[in-house]
Structures are given as C-alpha cells and as structure tokens.
C-alpha cells in the first residue's frame, strides 16, 4: 500500500541578497493514512518550510528539488491552479497565529463557508449550514449565533478552533498543523488540541503536527521527526524518541523540558548557543558548535541518518551508539 504522503529527499533553497539560504537539505519522511506524525525543531530548522512545500505555498523564488507524493501522485511541479484543487480538500493546514489567520473584514461563517464552496458546488445556504455544524464539532458554544461573529469578537482559542473548522471543512486526508498552540495561553492549549483531535476523529485525517514543544508531541502523535538546520536528525516512535534518544540535540530538547516523572532531576538543562545560519553552511555536523560530545570527525563529515537499534529509529550522529543510555545531565552538564 502506498503511503498517504511521501516526502523524498526534499531540498528548498531561497536565493537572497546575501547568498543562498539552504532552508531544507534533503528531508525524507512518510505519513500513512490516519497516522499522526510530529515534527519537532527550533524556529529556522526548516520544519515549516517543509510543510509549506507540501502545500505548494512557498514563494516563487524558492528552489525546490526532490519529490513530494500524495497518494502516489507527484505534487512538485504542478501548476498553482492544480494545487488549488488539492489544498483544502485533500491537504489542509492550520497556522500558528490565530489572531492574524482570519480576515478581519469577513464573518467567521463566511470564511468557513468559503472553504466549502472552494471545492463543492453547493448553494451558499448549504455551505453556511455546514459552517454551523463544523463550529459545533470544534466545540464552539452557540454555533448558529457565532457563525455571524467577526474574528475580533472572539478569543484566540476560539479563533484557532475556527481555523481548525476551516481545515476540516472538506474532510481532508491530511491536516498539517504548524505550531497550532504556540501563540495561545497554556490553559487554552489543551482545548485547542482537543478540538484538533475532534477534527481528526470526524474526518479520519492523518496529522502532521509541527511544534517546538515536545510536550504537545507526546500526547498527540505516534511518530516523531526531529529537525535541525534543515535536516532530519532523528526519527522514531514517540517512545523511542522520549526514552532512547540517539542524537545529542534530541537529548538537549528533552533536557530542557520540565518533567514531573523524574523527581530526582534537579533542574532544566539548557542547550547553549543558537542554531547555525543556513547561509553557506560549512561541512561537518551543524550541531557541532553546541554539542558537548563533538570530536574531530564531527567537523569533517556531516553525519547521515542511520538506523540505530531498529530500522525505524534513525539518528544522524556519528556516535549514536554511545548515547544509548545517556541522559541529558550526563551529556550537557
């Protein structure tokens, strides 16, 4: 059976006045029907660019190579008109900031109905009725009233639920959620994630959840891809990533996460430094300047993703075997 989404050796580069920015450098991953996959990384790691490439929404100046197949069909190289038919109907996307994601001059009902009408030839009244249904699914109280609200009349959490309603309007096969809770209060985050789960349940869509928050990943995905400097640096099941990380960066991410199950750990362990500029990356491992485990070899050869203990758990570190039992304190202390 072909996977729902196959991203194969994807590279994205942006020419700028300072040179070419290598935003994505050979990323491959798969999403099967109904799966939930997390993509974790810092801002600038290429995780959003990867999904914008899937949507066909990168700027024209972007140079894209590799392959992106949806249900076996190549998406790269398609015209914008062709991509319009896929966007919103087969693949839907949810963006980070709900406060700016909705057009301030239209009611939320109009904006949801618009998504329906973009792909289905139904009368406007039907589309509006569907909008009310969708609002109900994502847990908006008084949906038939709220459908006539303008975005500015709703809270951030409510607006993100509207965006989720828009995403599920045409029962897509895949929903890509790019930092859906980052801009929201912690108390609201859970509600929005719940709405996202409700949307998945109603549509049966697979989910790609992009976030820098490992906590969000843990509860809502089956597999995790860790990205750093435009590459996948580790990929595995949630358990593997959380309990047997094989890449120092993943360890670092886990170390900077507050955990209540390890009461013995004294404090959070930060990763020092910042991600490298993606302009003229030197050879060698991009994590090297921040890696306490770095050695000569790391400066010479950039490590490839290689299988660790099992063929589905891969890590891009020359010394991943040494990390088999390591904890964040040991590596970063």
């Amino acid at each position, binding site marked *: 059976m072909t996977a729902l989404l196959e991203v194969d050796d994807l590279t994205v580069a942006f020419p700028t006045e300072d040179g070419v920015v290598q935003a994505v450098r050979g990323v491959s991953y798969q999403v099967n029907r109904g799966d939930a996959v997390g993509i974790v990384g810092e801002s600038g790691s290429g995780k959003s660019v990867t999904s914008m490439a899937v949507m066909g929404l990168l700027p024209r100046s972007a140079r894209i190579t590799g392959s992106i197949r949806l249900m076996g069909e190549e998406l790269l190289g398609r015209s914008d008109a062709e991509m319009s038919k896929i*966007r919103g109907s087969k693949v839907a996307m949810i*963006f980070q900031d709900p406060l700016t*994601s909705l*057009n301030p*001059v239209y009611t939320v009902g109009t904006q949801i109905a618009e998504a329906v009408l973009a792909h289905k030839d139904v009368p406007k009244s039907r589309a509006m009725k569907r909008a009310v249904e969708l609002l109900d699914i994502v847990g908006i109280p008084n949906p038939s009233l709220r459908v006539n609200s*303008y975005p*500015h009349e709703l809270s951030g959490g409510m607006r993100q639920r509207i*965006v989720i309603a828009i995403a599920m309007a045409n029962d897509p096969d895949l929903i890509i959620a790019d930092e859906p809770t980052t801009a929201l209060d912690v108390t609201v985050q859970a509600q929005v994630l719940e709405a996202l789960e409700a949307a998945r349940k109603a549509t049966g869509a697979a989910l790609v959840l992009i976030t820098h928050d490992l906590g969000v990943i843990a509860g809502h995905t089956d597999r995790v891809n860790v990205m750093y400097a435009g590459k996948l640096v580790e990929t595995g099941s949630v358990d593997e990533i959380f309990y047997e990380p094989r890449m120092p960066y993943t360890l670092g991410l886990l170390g900077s996460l507050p955990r209540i199950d390890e009461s013995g750990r004294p404090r959070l362990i930060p990763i020092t430094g910042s991600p490298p500029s993606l302009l003229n990356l030197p050879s060698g491992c991009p994590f090297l300047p921040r890696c306490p485990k770095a050695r000569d070899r790391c400066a010479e050869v950039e490590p490839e993703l290689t299988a660790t203990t099992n063929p589905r758990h891969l890590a891009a570190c020359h010394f991943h075997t040494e990390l088999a039992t390591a904890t964040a304190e040991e590596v970063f202390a």
Partner: protein
Amino acid sequence: MFAYVVRRLAAAIPVLLVASFLAYALVALSGDPLEPLKLRNPPAPPRTIELETQRLGLDHNIFVRYWDWLWGVLHGDFGQSVQSNYNIGANLGRSATVTLRLVLVAMLLALVLAILTGVLSAVRQYSRFDYATTFAGFVFLAMPSFWIAIVLKDLAVRYNRASGTTVFYTIGETSQNYESLSAAGKFADVAGHLVLPTIALALISYAAWSRYQRAAMLEVLNSDYVRLARAKGLTWRKVLVKHVLRTALIPLVTVTALDIAAILGGAVITETVFNWNGLGRMLLNGVARADTNAVAAWLLLAGLVVIAFNVIADSLYAVLDPRIRHE
C-alpha cells in the same frame, strides 16, 4: 453607525471653530488693509481712513471682530470686504463650485490610477512594471505642481499651434461664449477646460496614493489570512479579489481624506497657471489686499471641506472595517 457619525461631527466642530479663529487672527494681525490708503500720494484725507476703519471694524479688538464676523457668517453675511462693493459670500460660492469641480474630478482620476498601478505593481512586485511605476511615482512626487502645470500647458499650446485648432483649452475655466452655449455645449466646454488642470493636479496625489496602495497591498499579500485563504484552496484570482483587494483598499480611504487640504492648496496653484477664476484667484486677491473677512471666509470653507471629507472617510472606514464599527 449613525451615532458614530454624529460623534465624529461633534468632535469636529470645536476643531473647525478654533481653526477659523486662528485663521482670522493670523490674517488680521499680519497686515493692515488700509496701508495703501495711508501711504498714498497725495495722502488720503483722515476722514476717509476713519470711515474705512469703521466700515471694516478695525477699531475693535480681534476677539470682537472675529465674533462679529462669525455671527454674520452663521447668518449668511460674510462681512465687508476691503474692496467696497465686493460680495464675499457670492464670490465664495461661485469660486467654490468652479474649484471643487476641479478638485473632485482630479481626486477621482488620481484614485482610479493609483489603485490600478498600486495593485498591479504589488502583485508583480519587482517586475519591470513595478520598477517603472515606482520610479515614475518618485519623479511626480518631486515635481512642483505648478511646474507640471506649466509644462503641460506649454505642450498643449504647442500642439494647438501645430494642429491649427484648439484641441486643448489652456486658459480659464470656461470659454468666453459659455453663456450662449446649449446645455450639452456647456458640459463639453466645462469638461474640455478641466482636462489639463485635472491631470496636473491629479499627478501628485496619484504618485503618493499609488505608493500607498502598493504598500497596503503588499502588507495584505504577506498577511497570515491571505496564506490561510490560499491554504483553503481558493484560486489566486479569488484570493486577490475577495481577500487582498477588499482589505487593502481600506487604508486608502483615510489617506485620501488626509490629503484633501494639500489638494486644495494644489488647486490654488494649478488654477493660477491656467488662469482660472476660482478659489485660487479669490485667495490671492484677498491675501494681496489683507482682506481679512474674505481670506478668513476662504479658510473657513477650506476647513469645512477638509473636515467634511474626514468625517465621510471615517464613516466609510467604519462601514468597510467591522473592527471600527463595533467599537
């Protein structure tokens, strides 16, 4: 909505009153209308000067003079002019119809052109069209309005001379024989005389507004909600019309209203070049004679127009942008 408009109007009235007082005081205090009489050779008899002083109310202090003038204006009497038998109110009305015709047509032309080029150059950002219109916009912005007007007029005169007929009207707001024309002829005559001054006056506003429209378009094009609209699967054309244009036109409403005072000033200059008998000539005549009542009436009208435009713009803004409407 109605309450909103009323509130805006209520806030505008004190501003207009203070502005009119300021204008009145500035004109009254900066010059003496009787100076020509006093410096005349042979000197005017003291009795003449005394009578003129009384007729113009110069023997009162500035507050009393302003109050008397304002009271008169509110009752339709614009007061005495320095030129004895010059009816300020009648002249103001006649000049205003001439000039506002020019101002409105020029604004309309500037708006249409500005929206067209602003939208196109934003959609084709960094294209040749974008660079060309941006550069042209900068050049127009750097041109004094009278300079554009004189060059246009010169070109028109040369063309007329070469073709042997009057294709372009270059002098006056109407022809000499205007009164004898039929209704259609009158319309054609007025329109013909409008062509060159309208272009001259419109070019500068056009330059500023097209740049503004381009910037507004780019901001919306880069907005998250346009990205979401694209992600819904709307076609680019649909996104452009329904989301980008609709939203990016809103700020232009405010900018247009803010520029109305400058456009009135530009009209004064354009009219001078084309020898129109409109508000420009009325102002310059009044100014040259230190005719306080006439100039103050002129500035009051200008202030009224400016404020009217701003209230209209605010109301329109509220209609277009639900965020304001619900405040």
